[in-house]
């Protein structure tokens, strides 16, 4: 009772049963590993290896291209085969380092930290930055930038995004059940940077076992609390999560830090723990491989850069022919036309569906019913914004706060006329933002 939440939102079919009870399984790559140089928000990384170089697992192969950027590490030993554009999940061609895997997984030596408590705030941030930690929930925002707000003394809440509100995804759920200690230790490391802050683990109440387990584990941690959240999409949206936990509302022109908050995903916090405590860079992550087309849906720990096709093999291949394959969740994920795509730091899931329900629907006229208005977590009027977009009215689009859209897709999901509202709004948003950059 009393789970916190935000206004609006929708309740899509959860589909988490498929992979929820499958323990994390480790997968070793057999083929080449591909590392796109841009798998985070900000400047692309610049390669520091050349074709023909031998690399070890855990060796840095690309340096951060600026402050808002992140280095990239090899996740297997082998030889650099090529540095060339490769197709990534969102559909673009991105310059990538290709490493042929020698199958030995020879690793560099890491330098663990025996006394984390003695590290200064800057030392922690430097270790996080050096390890290439980015927001691993999907956005890929460099974590060291998040951890360096203008006024660190004003940070009151460090929120662990354990909502996992996207349907089908269970990776964070398994992490909370199987690696809770790392999660809590990671949180404590971040709290060490912000002396006044409180750590909050925000968990949707469809995961009562996680809530119970973590509540028990933080009983003796005075600075960490568990906050139960209502199961509703997009509960894990950054602005929605902050509102649910603290009651503070931020808009697109503000940062979470303006509300005294820093939000990090489960996987990211575990990466912070690995970076600071164990000295290990980001080379592995866990993803949910699921959907009704997969033989053995489950949660897999693999080396970042592994081809998606190998993950499907690890999950027993396809039990039936998929029609649609999505990198990420069904609400915000990217559909891919093939499987020859490398995994990145932000690959949270691969969802394979035998039926593409979107292809069968035909949009009809908007009847002005207002369901999109009720569903919009940003309190916008999606049907009107989509109309402005379709008619090229960028001025009206901005007046009706179109730029506040977080692209969660709730409007398209709920629309009884089956209109592609989110798609129209995203298109106009891109145009308006591009025009603003030109000015």
């Amino acid at each position, binding site marked *: 009772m009393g789970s916190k939440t935000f206004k609006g939102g929708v309740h899509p079919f959860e589909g988490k049963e498929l992979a929820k009870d499958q323990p994390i399984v480790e997968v070793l790559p057999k083929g080449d590993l591909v590392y796109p140089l841009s798998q985070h928000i900000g400047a692309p990384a610049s390669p520091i290896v050349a074709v023909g170089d031998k690399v070890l697992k855990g060796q840095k192969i690309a340096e951060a291209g600026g402050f808002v950027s992140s280095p990239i590490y090899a996740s297997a030993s082998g030889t650099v085969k090529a540095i060339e554009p490769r197709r990534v999940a969102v559909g673009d061609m991105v310059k990538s380092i290709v490493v042929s895997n020698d199958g030995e997984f020879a690793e560099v030596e890491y330098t663990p930290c025996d006394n984390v408590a003695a590290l200064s705030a800057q030392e922690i941030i430097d270790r996080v930055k050096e390890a290439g930690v980015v927001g691993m929930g999907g956005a890929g925002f460099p974590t060291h930038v998040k951890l360096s707000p203008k006024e660190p003394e004003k940070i009151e809440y460090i929120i662990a995004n354990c909502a996992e509100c996207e349907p089908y995804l269970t990776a964070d759920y398994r992490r909370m059940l199987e690696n809770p200690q790392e999660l809590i230790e990671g949180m404590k490391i971040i709290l060490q940077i912000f002396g006044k802050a409180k750590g909050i683990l925000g968990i949707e109440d469809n995961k009562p076992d996680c809530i119970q387990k973590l509540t028990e584990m933080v009983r003796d941690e005075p600075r960490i609390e568990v906050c139960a959240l209502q199961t509703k999409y997009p509960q894990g949206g950054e602005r929605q999560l902050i509102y649910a936990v603290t009651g503070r509302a931020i808009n697109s022109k503000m940062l979470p830090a303006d509300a005294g908050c820093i939000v990090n995903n489960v996987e990211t916090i575990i990466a912070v723990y690995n970076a600071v405590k164990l000295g290990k860079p980001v080379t592995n992550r866990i993803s949910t491989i699921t959907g009704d087309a997969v033989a053995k849906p489950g949660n897999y720990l693999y080396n970042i850069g592994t081809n998606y096709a190998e993950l499907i093999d690890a999950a027993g291949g396809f039990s039936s022919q998929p029609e649609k394959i999505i990198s990420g969740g069904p609400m915000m994920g990217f559909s891919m036309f093939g499987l020859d795509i490398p995994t990145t730091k932000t690959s949270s899931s691969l969802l394979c569906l035998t039926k593409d329900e979107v292809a069968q629907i035909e949009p009809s006229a908007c009847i002005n019913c207002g369901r999109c208005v009720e569903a919009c977590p940003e309190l916008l009027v999606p049907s009107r914004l989509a109309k402005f977009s379709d008619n090229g009215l960028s001025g009206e689009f901005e007046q009706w*706060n179109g730029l506040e859209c977080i692209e969660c897709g709730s409007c398209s999901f709920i629309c009884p006329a089956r209109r592609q509202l989110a798609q129209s709004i995203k298109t106009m948003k891109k145009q308006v933002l591009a025009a603003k950059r030109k000015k």
Partner: protein
Amino acid sequence: MSDLYHVSSSPHVRSKDTTGRIMLYVVIALLPASLFGIFNFGFRALLLMAVTIAGCVASEWVYNKIVHKKDTITDLSAVVTGLLLALNLPVTLPWWEAVLGGVFAIVVVKCLFGGLGQNFMNPALGARCFLLIAFAADMTNFVTDTYTGPTPLAAMRNGEAVDTMAMLIGRIPGTIGETSAIAILIGAIFMILMGVIDLRIPASYIVTFSVFMLLFGGHGFDFSYLTAQLCGGGLMLGAFFMATDYVTSPITPRGQIVFGICCGILTGLFRTMGANAEGVSFAIILSNLLVPMIEKYTVPLAFGQVREAKKQEGGR
């Protein structure tokens, strides 16, 4: 090409609700009032419903055929329009006038403006007003075998006493579907429970109207007079089934409240000052015309936005 998977913009899943299902819920919600209308006025009420619905559906089908548009009758919106129109007609109306009303509603009010979602006034009410002007005598003839007296609103206008209990139940003269407040409320509760409508428009409409009548009704704080005003005429049917019409009411939440207030004030004005005892239809239609302006001034603030900051940006 066959090994390529489908690609589209997210989201990749959809809810089960469709326009047709929403319209079906509205039809179900209208059943109590319709059945009571048949019980109250006899078999001829059913006949009128059948011909108006048939007139609406057929004219939509024919219109789409002629202008080579996709057939849209399966969305059931024409059925809703037809049924609503029938409920707004006196049972004595000649059947061909009812059919003409249905054709007018669909072709003139809806299709000529672009079809579903594009009309600026409620088709059923537009047709009712058309019939009221074209066939004034037939449209105000509420005398049947059972009822020979005036409608309660007309009676109250002449200073006669009315039986508020009979008005609640609906054993009074009037149009087919407007007489029973209870039957209408059952349908309204169903629509609210199914999430078809919310209370913003009906509540602000009814509250505004009540306040208006208490202040300017000339009867002071007379509770039974107010009840009779609320249950009389088309107010309940209008507030729950016609002012809430998606297409012709504002989509902005604050706009919906403003819209309800407009309906309430206009209805009060027409009933106290007008030449006619009734004014719901005209009040809603006039408010329909204000919708674009209401929406323009009630653009909601986005999540986390502060009104002053928005003004400073120079945005209205």
